[in-house]
């Protein structure tokens, strides 16, 4: 187990400091600290109800919160998710948040909503999405709701990439997907991270996330209880020790 901060290899793009969030009287997050630097994929692990999704929603400002979220060395407004997204903090929500009645192309174009009608830029971003997920290009005019779960997840990540994110937050992208598709999507996230994009990945499937992550935060009852260096985790048993410690 290593103290947070000692594994930093780059100055953080996203710096979460003492983030606290409540649902009514229940404290769902308690003073969470987390950083993600350029080229880093950091994983947030933990059992159901640990506060993983709440953490991402609080970072985005989707729920009331206290503490500070610093992005590129400036504080993000506390309750302005659209503003955070337009600055470059982009969330792929749990359950994908695909707009089912719209076509794939319409979904993707919504990702670039902030840039208006700059067709050349939209085209550039679309081509980047097609490079990441060639299958999406074949389904542009298909109604998104009629696609398989894996394809929908590709559209969801592709739509987030259409926003030209400076940091990408993903909430359980493997949820309900076959292992092969999960692998395909996680490989893409690894490639994105390797290209310099900071990625914060909330994931229940810890072994998969640890393969990609340079650092993992273990969340339990709303607190970071361990910061894990994946290279130090040699086996599932060792990982289980972190969970039960």
């Amino acid at each position: 187990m290593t103290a947070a901060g000692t594994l930093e290899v780059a100055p953080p793009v996203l710096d979460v400091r003492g983030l606290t969030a409540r649902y009514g009287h229940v404290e769902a997050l308690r003073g969470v600290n987390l950083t993600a630097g350029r080229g880093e994929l950091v994983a947030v692990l933990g059992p159901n109800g640990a506060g993983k999704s709440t953490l991402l929603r609080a970072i985005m400002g989707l729920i009331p919160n206290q503490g500070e979220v610093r992005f590129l060395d400036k504080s993000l407004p506390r309750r302005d998710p659209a503003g955070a997204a337009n600055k470059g903090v982009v969330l792929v929500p749990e359950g994908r948040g695909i707009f089912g009645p719209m076509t794939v192309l319409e979904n993707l174009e919504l990702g670039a909503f902030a840039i208006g009608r700059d067709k050349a830029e939209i085209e550039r971003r679309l081509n980047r999405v097609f490079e990441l997920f060639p299958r999406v290009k074949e389904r542009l005019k298909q109604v998104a709701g009629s696609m398989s779960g894996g394809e929908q997840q590709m559209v969801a990540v592709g739509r987030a990439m259409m926003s030209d994110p400076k940091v990408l937050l993903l909430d359980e992208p493997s949820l309900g997907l076959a292992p092969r598709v999960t692998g395909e999507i996680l490989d893409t996230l690894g490639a994105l991270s390797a290209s310099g994009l900071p990625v914060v990945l909330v994931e229940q499937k810890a072994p998969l996330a640890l393969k990609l992550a340079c650092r993992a935060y273990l969340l339990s009852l709303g607190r970071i209880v361990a910061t894990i260096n994946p290279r130090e985790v040699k086996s599932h048993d060792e990982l289980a020790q972190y969970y039960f410690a």
Partner: protein
Amino acid sequence: MTNSPSITSPEAHGLARPRTRHFGSAAVWVLSAAIIGYALVFGGYMATIVAFALIYAVFVSGLNVFMGLTAQVSFGQSAFAAIGGYTSAVLTTTYEWAPLPGMVAGLVFALVAAFLIGFPTLRLKGHYLAMATLAIGLITYEIAVEWESVTQGYLGISGIPPLGIGPFEAVSDRAILAVLSVIVVILAFAVTRIRRSRLGRAFSAVAGSEEAASALGINVSRYKLVSFLIAAAIASLSGSLFVHVVGYVSPEVFGLHMVILAFTMVYIGGLGTVAGPLIGALIISILPEVFRGMKDYQDLAYGVTMILILIYAPKGIAGVADALDARRSA
């Protein structure tokens, strides 16, 4: 002017233009046109029924923007129809304004009221928003009853001049029908444009998932407010049209009955569709006349018909037509 293909169109990515067939939608428009045409040709009582249906079609078009395109609920749109109607009535009778400036003034008042009401209430969601807007409708009704110095209470305001611009006045049944038909077509065109626009995409995203829309940088509160303002403006227009067509206004016109009827029309016609408000308003207005011969059983027949439509066409008549078109195009 050249028509360059959109870079982000399917064609730009090597896809053939989707060949959408619109037989179903066309059938709905033809049926609506046939009903209006019948009323235009034969006039009389049928013309009056269809004229009221067209005014409701205007009102429901606004409701459809807020409920159908943006998936928000408002039971209070009658408040904005009342503001438009009473503003037109007071300005054209007490102050002898021409109908058109009166309508514009009503529109401005309705927009100001919608902004002041929408800003705090649109933070609410679902049932809470429905209850808040219902309260607004009921409060407006009470104001219309109690503010006798302006509205003349239950007595109402009579002697309101007919629709008209300059020397033209829509006095005859046919002229009124023609004017209302043009307004309904313009509104349908406007709703089509909104649906396909960046604004419409934002509305659809808000309708799909407010959280996902926010996470994409769409300012959900702002677009909900814009949708509410558009709906209020159209409701105000319908209120003004009503008072000029009937020549009289009283609080009962804008009561809860109006809201219930409009909800029935939008669901029977097809929520979120372009033709839905028109066909819904025509059918709901005409059905009681169709069943009038059944005397004691007419309400029963009307109710059974509503239930059958909602069972076999849960997305409304225009919704079924759109679904058929989509299936043919697939």
